[in-house]
């Protein structure tokens, strides 16, 4: 299979060094006849927004590390924060780890 149009992949980038890994991933996909274009985001919210609005991103990526660290040390449940927590959690669940239009992963 050879795709002439690159798949647009979204990724959150906190450290410029991580772009090196994405270059390697990009080369791998290119060599295997499935070019990808990576769009970097400063946070997951922006990335998920772009995916849901189908603006740039066709495939979103999310690291386990980040998923864990975002929800590290949760506040103890209380009347005040229960709603916020569940809303955040459902937003988080809505964000697909992989997959959307034309995803082959």
């Amino acid at each position, binding site marked *: 299979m050879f795709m002439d149009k690159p798949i647009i992949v979204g990724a959150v*980038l906190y450290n*410029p060094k991580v772009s090196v890994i994405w270059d390697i991933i990009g080369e791998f996909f290119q060599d295997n006849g499935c070019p990808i274009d990576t769009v*970097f*985001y*400063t946070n997951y919210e922006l990335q998920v927004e772009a995916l849901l609005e189908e603006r740039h991103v066709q495939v979103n990526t999310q690291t386990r590390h980040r998923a864990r660290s975002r929800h590290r040390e949760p506040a103890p449940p209380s009347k005040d924060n229960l709603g916020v927590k569940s809303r955040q959690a459902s937003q988080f669940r809505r964000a697909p780890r992989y997959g959307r239009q034309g995803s082959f992963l």
Partner: protein
Amino acid sequence: MDTERYTWTLRVSTAAKDRATVFVRQHQFAVGAPVQFDAAYDSITALEYVLGAIGADVVNGLWALALKRRVEVDHVEAVIQGELNNPLTYLGVVGESGHPGLEQVSVKVYVASLATDEEIRRVWQEMLDKSPLVRTLQPAIRFELSMQVVL
């Protein structure tokens, strides 16, 4: 001032990704990407050339002036560190602010000499006043310059 303007002309060409060749007088050198974050990258980036040029300007300038002022110097070495305002903007990260320009350059110069500290400091100050790169960059970015005499 009625002096003829002196202009330096270099030719830079590329026919492949991140592989520029600079032609200057009868010399040439290769330059890689503008910036790279891969420690194993096999070329010298444009940014590294700039930082290296600053260091070379300082150490060679200091050496030449020391020679001229008859101050004996055994060795001059500089450690240069450069920081971009926000490297993520160079990578086009959506949502980042700032710019990919140099924010800060730190130059630490070590001079091995038996001359007195005062003699070295005088040469150092004269070098800073005469350095084309220091004089250009000092008003534009945060420029930290320090010199230490070692035996």
